[in-house]
């Protein structure tokens, strides 16, 4: 069953075209990862899906009644705002304390309920965000570089938790990631984005696609290739502009 359908989506900020003619879908229960260089429109695509950015053309269709759990890239809580983990988790959804405890457990941080958000470490914070996203049993989980700021063991553990969550709840996962080595092993499908969909498919197919190599280089994992990327590759009728990449 298709949960999210993105049709012919274009997003513009002023004169800059961030996304054009993006087509993609997310099916129930699958893990889809969006990869792409900085400024390739990954976050804009996610924002368009949750309705935070209005498309300039095309549309985003969600399955009626679709429940979305969203884990933002980073969440800055102003130090002047005192809020406990429990209060934070119960902010938007009418949920019980037991549900909070369960969600925290599912996210791998069972004992944080009474702590202040400002006292959490980076890893704990991201897991609380994950727990909050899980609390209303979403059909699909959206993660926008949710491991930013975590060290490598931390982010590996985080992605492990994501797979665990999928196995237990069966929810679909659409995530943005920079960590290609993790992505390639954990995803069912990879979408390579650079203003448009460069290529997509299973991790193995994408990794060998010429478009992907043009973006990330041929090195295994491509971790360093990210920083060597320049906009010198060509596609049929697509124009890459440096402005769009800003």
């Amino acid at each position: 069953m298709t949960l999210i359908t993105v049709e012919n989506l274009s997003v513009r900020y002023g004169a800059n075209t961030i996304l054009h003619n993006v087509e993609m879908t997310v099916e129930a229960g699958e893990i889809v990862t969006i990869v792409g260089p900085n400024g390739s429109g990954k976050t804009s695509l996610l924002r368009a899906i949750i309705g935070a950015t209005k498309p300039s053309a095309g549309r985003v269709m969600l399955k009626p009644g679709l429940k979305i759990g969203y884990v933002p890239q980073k969440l800055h809580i102003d130090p002047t705002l005192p809020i406990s983990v429990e209060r934070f988790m119960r902010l938007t959804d009418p949920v019980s304390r037991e549900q909070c405890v369960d969600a925290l457990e599912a996210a791998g941080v069972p004992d944080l309920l009474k702590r202040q958000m400002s006292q959490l470490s980076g890893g704990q914070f991201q897991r609380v965000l994950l727990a909050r996203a899980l609390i209303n049993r979403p059909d699909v989980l959206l993660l926008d570089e949710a491991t930013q700021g975590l060290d490598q063991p931390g982010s590996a553990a985080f992605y492990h938790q994501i797979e665990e969550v999928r196995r237990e709840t069966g929810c679909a996962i659409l995530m943005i990631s920079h960590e290609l080595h993790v992505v390639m092993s954990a995803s069912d499908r990879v979408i390579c984005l650079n203003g448009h969909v460069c290529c997509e498919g299973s991790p193995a197919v994408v990794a060998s696609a010429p478009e992907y190599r043009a973006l990330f280089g041929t090195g295994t994992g491509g971790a360093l290739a990210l920083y060597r990327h320049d906009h010198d590759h060509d596609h049929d009728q697509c124009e890459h502009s440096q402005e769009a990449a800003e």
Partner: protein
Amino acid sequence: MLDDFMTRATLAGIGVACAAAPLGCFVVWRRMAYFGDATAHAAILGVALSLTFQVSIFAGALAVALAMALTVSLLTGRGYAMDTLLGVLAHSALAFGLVAVSFLSGVRIDLMAYLFGDILAVSRWDLVVIWGGAALVVGLIAWRWSQLLTATLNEELAYASGLNPKREQLILTLALAVTVAVAIKVVGVLLIAAMLIIPAAASRSLARSPESMALIAAAIGAFSTVAGLRSAYVVDTPAGPSIVCVAAVLFACFSLIGWHTRRGA
């Protein structure tokens, strides 16, 4: 009981403190301090216009404060940084207001009363307006409390929960304009931002939840009003600034205590 000007002044100050406390918390959390300042400064233009067209000061100040806040919200992100925009608009409005007031030859007005407030001259009708406005602000914020908090924490999180953060921002803007309009009489346009920010900031080190921070801020605001008015009466100092002074001293004390306990912990 309301025959006594000190009683009316105290009630007026507490009314403003109640509205300013929850709103002030959001101003602090969202780092909108300068926004509150700008809206308040613009209100002096509203005062001038009301005197020119002989409408109530409250209505004029409310209209201009609202127009100002909406203009800033609309123009944000279109070329100028927020603080530049606020600096231009707020001080232009203040300057135009001061110039406009000078043209009002037939009317003798005490400009100081609008810049620093004239809480001791609060009438019964003023009290009705202040408490009505305060009730509106508190009601508005209480009604949208969770949504406002979510939008304050993270815009995307709010969208993903089916909220529109822009609408929540608009609600705060509206509440700010109403607060400014009712607070002119009490602390004047130059010190309204102080009533918003200082009690909220002072309550931070004592609070463990957003709600308790708003309640403690209200208590600090109310205490500052009572103590400020008392000292103004005894030492014969200007009432509005005295209230702000008490709040500032409380802020310093609580911050020191908070700093000390954190360091000790």
